[in-house]
């Protein structure tokens, strides 16, 4: 087993997984929040845009989005996200394209989580905000969203766990994250198939389990007291 670790860069692969998760989570949170605000805004057309975004990206397989960023955005439409002169061009470009795909896909789930968070905010809060003359955006920004985030910790956390696992899909466009390296290792060392799988599976358990425990601890502490 030690020999497997010295022969292949297993920890490096999981580091790529963590990086993908980190950047995609930030991207998804930003896009998802904007879409969620659009979906509850008083402007009907913006609501329509928000709803369409969620329906489109939630119902498209992540694999299709991932393949599209590589074959479509980059190879056909010429979108380049890294320095083309750099010797790490392919690595960097694929890595960033994968982040785009992950962020865009998970943003729709972040939006739905936030909407359920908004539902947990007591109507009196928003009414009080309106009655002191706050506009919709002020109301959302200072009163509703801060409480909605606290109420949405559990669904947001579940989305984060799904995101950690979905980073494996980046392997279809050649990002050397955990599942990509595992597939390589399985091809090279067919004699220890089970051992390799167990190593990587436990790696993912180690990544996702603390997040799950953290969510249940945090959601209880952050829940708005009524």
């Amino acid at each position, binding site marked *: 087993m030690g020999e497997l670790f010295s022969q292949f860069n297993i920890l490096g692969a999981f580091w790529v997984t963590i990086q993908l998760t980190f950047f995609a989570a930030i991207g998804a949170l930003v896009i998802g929040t904007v879409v969620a605000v659009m979906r*509850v805004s*008083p*402007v*009907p*057309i*913006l609501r329509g*845009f928000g709803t369409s975004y969620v*329906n*489109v990206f*939630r*119902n*498209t*397989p*992540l*694999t*299709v*989005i991932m*393949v*599209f960023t590589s*074959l*479509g955005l980059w*190879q*056909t*439409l*010429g979108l380049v996200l890294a320095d083309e002169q750099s010797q790490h061009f392919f690595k960097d470009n694929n890595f960033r394209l994968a982040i785009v795909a992950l962020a865009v896909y998970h943003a729709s789930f972040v939006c739905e989580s936030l909407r359920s968070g*908004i*539902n947990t*905010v007591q*109507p009196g809060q*928003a*009414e009080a905000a*309106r009655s002191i003359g706050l506009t*919709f955006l002020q*109301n*959302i920004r200072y009163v*509703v969203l801060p409480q909605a985030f606290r109420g949405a910790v559990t669904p947001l956390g579940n989305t984060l766990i799904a995101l950690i*696992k*979905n980073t*494996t*899909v980046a*392997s*279809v466009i050649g990002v050397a994250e*955990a*599942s990509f390296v*595992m*597939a390589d290792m*399985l*091809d090279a060392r*067919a004699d220890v*198939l089970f051992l*390799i*799988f167990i190593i*990587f*599976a436990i790696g*993912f*358990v180690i990544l*996702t*389990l603390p997040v799950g425990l953290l969510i249940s601890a945090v959601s209880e502490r952050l829940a708005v007291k009524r």
Partner: protein
Amino acid sequence: MSSDQTVLYDVPGAKARVRHRLYGAASIVVALLVLWWVLTKFADKNQLEAAKWSPFLDWVTWKEYLLIGLRQTLIAAVISIVFAAVLGLLLGLGRMSQIRLIRWPCAVFVEFFRAVPVLLMMYFTFRLYNQYGLFSDDLRALAAVVTGLTFYNASVMGEVLRAGVASLPAGQREAGLSIGLRPPQVLRAILVPQALTAMMPILVSQLVIVLKDTALGSAILYDELLNWGQTLGSAQANTVPVLIVVAVIFILLNYALTKVAGRLERRLRRRGASKGVDAEGTGLGAEVTGPDMRYNTQTGL
């Protein structure tokens, strides 16, 4: 939904309505600009040429590529959801068993396969089947896809079943025990049938997830819709249009399934509401006509 939407902002008056219309017009302009920019990008790269899109008007494109792919996608999804439902039921029952020797392995199985990414599982099982020559060559990728999807979704469904049973009113269990049923009988004859009906919408929305995840099969060269789309795209040099069409097929299918799940849920909730009044015991008559009695006559599932 409508109630919290009106709570977030005042009912728009005359001025606000004009302003909202202006915002709406502005956002449409922005959207049109973005669309125009995307289309010019597409046109720059010759993606709007008739030659790239006309194949979709040709029946051969559908018959020999996309519909075959769609069939393979549906085959994988249906087999997986059936296996997952059966295995999920067993796992859910196992986790609620009173025997520790059954409960613990089921718990480990569920927690393990919920944490392992489906794609990781597919990479592994595909090579495993290869190594030991399980399944014939043309079925091996399908078997790996089905295995990955089944184990993950069964674990999820097992948990859903357990949550469904836990959410039933305690009176259901107590009533079963008080008429002399043993705890496993109560579980099988009273609790699980009710949890199962409540689970129907979740089963359908799980089908959406399964359907989307079959696309992962393209990574182990299972010939599903995305895989056929990529073949088609390289054959006709129109990858972008093909991927868009493939995405639209998936979106339409999943959107329809989501609608079905929503309708099922509303129907169950309406039925559940009337059931709730009965169960709370408005009168003795409720107990006789109540929907729960008939399950007592069933010996199994």
